[in-house]
């Protein structure tokens, strides 16, 4: 039997993670694209760390950082009365860190491609930095932003190691599709595992196809833009 609860939870997690990363990833990407700070490469390395670290390593440190003995864990417990590990919030925080490079890197790539003279022209025409950002830089980087969000969404749908370390396996709270599939395989329920795996694969394929199609159209509107 397909565990819809796990599927809905996974979609909710992916949605929350994408929204949070859109809000905090965009400023990071902008800063990385436009700063002339000489130590910027250190920040780039930190942002890219989740790409190379085993999910268990990342999960382990997030678990320690969020645990009841850490300042963050104590502060959160004082605020809400319960700890972060093995909750949906804790899982979301870990997933945000895990997917950070998947959002930031495509954004940096497209922000950096925006012709500096367009940005200069905007300032010369009297526009504030914020207006230049929303009227020039972001519209011309739509492709990279969409790519980042799609990668983040698909990546979160399929994550396993970090979820297991930080979230555990609590049905309806932290049990995501990939963990449900693992459980079913362990219990030799291959039919159920297969159905859920197929669903995940089909969903990922459709999401990717739709976003890449939109993305292509987004570029087709401005073919003059290099």
């Amino acid at each position: 039997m397909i565990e819809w609860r796990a599927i809905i939870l996974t979609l909710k997690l992916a949605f929350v993670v994408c929204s949070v990363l859109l809000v905090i990833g965009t400023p990071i990407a902008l800063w990385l694209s436009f700063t002339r700070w000489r130590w910027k490469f250190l920040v780039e390395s930190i942002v890219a760390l989740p790409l190379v670290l085993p999910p268990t390593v990342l999960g382990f440190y997030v678990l320690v950082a969020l645990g009841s003995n850490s300042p963050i864990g104590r502060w959160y417990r004082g605020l809400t009365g319960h700890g972060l590990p093995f909750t949906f919030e804790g899982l979301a925080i870990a997933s945000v860190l895990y997917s950070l490079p998947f959002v930031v890197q495509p954004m940096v790539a497209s922000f950096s491609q925006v012709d500096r003279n367009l940005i200069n022209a905007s300032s010369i025409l009297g526009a504030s930095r914020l207006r230049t950002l929303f009227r020039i830089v972001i519209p011309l980087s739509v492709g990279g932003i969409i790519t980042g969000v799609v990668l983040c969404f698909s990546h979160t749908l399929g994550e396993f190691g970090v979820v297991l370390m930080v979230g555990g396996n609590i049905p309806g709270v932290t049990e995501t599709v990939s963990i449900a599939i693992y459980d079913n395989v362990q219990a030799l329920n291959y039919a159920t595992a297969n159905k859920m795996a197929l669903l995940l694969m089909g969903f990922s394929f459709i999401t990717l196809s739709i976003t890449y199609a939109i993305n292509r159209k987004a570029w087709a509107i401005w073919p003059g833009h290099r």
Partner: protein
Amino acid sequence: MAGAEITRREESAALSVRIVRRVSPDFSLEAAFDAPAGFTMLLGTSGCGKTTLLNCIAGLLAPDSGRIALGSRPLFDSASRVNVPVAERHLGYLFQNLALFPHLTIEQNIHYGIAKLPAAERRERTSALLESFRIAHLLKSKPNRISGGERQRAALARSLVTDPSFLLLDEPLSALDQATKATIIDDLRAWNATHRIPILYVTHSPEEAFALGEHVVVLDAGRVVASGMPQDVLRAPRQETIAQIVGFENVFDAVVASLDEREGTMLCRLGLGGRELEVPLSRTDVGARVRIAIRAGDIIIAAERPSGLSARNSFTGRIISIRQEGVTVIVTVESGVEFEVHITPAACQELHLETGKRIWLVIKTYSCNLVESKRPD
């Protein structure tokens, strides 16, 4: 947005620039000049610091020290720590690549700098400009759908519609054909007849500089080497670098043969052939080495021995090559040394000029410019 307010400027406020900016360890820009209302042509070879200079004036780069002011309004002053942000300098800047926003229509591009104005005033400001720039029919098009000349007009209209206090043009027309270029310049000139703002126009083409400019500033290796009215800069190039930038096709090494103080002239012997030229007197001695620069367009070709002329230099030569570039026929004549002469195609036909033919060259004394030679190192 400061551009939305129409700051009434004093009539003909001049742009005054006195700045130093280090570009690299062995190159620094040290520019000092004034650009009054009207066209000031900034002439220089590539790599002379023209774009750095424009970026400093626009506020995209900060000079290391100095002062930039428009009339009495300082834009940058290292002494009193003034550095007006780009968005508040209220200027127009036409980049070499125009920088039209590719995702916006021409109309959106043109309205970009006047977004804060009420719609009615925006329309009023735009319509007259679009009419005179002949781009009213392109408003709904994206920049990549229109021709190069139309893009130039659109970019120019986008700058002018904000009613800027001064305008910077960075070789904006270099990609255009001569005719399109000329009409755009005429449109800009007509616009500035009523607005009277300083227009700083960067070019590497001496012809363009001297044809368009009311003032010319010659920049070489980051320094202003000459500035003034076009004819003054052109007619009296005192340094060899200026002569090269300014475009003298004929530059000859010569030795002073004799001085005539009473006539205000002197005779100079060119090269080895012994050809002598009468040139204006300068403070020098017989035997001194000088360099003489003559524009190819200042030399006259005659089919027969000329008589009854005021010109003091006339001598025979033999044509070694004739070729046409645009509407200029370039004739090379051998007469002890080689002279390059520019004439019109009609003149070339009328005189039946051909390679090998013997002709006469006529050069006025005052067409011969004495150029100080660089010291041999």
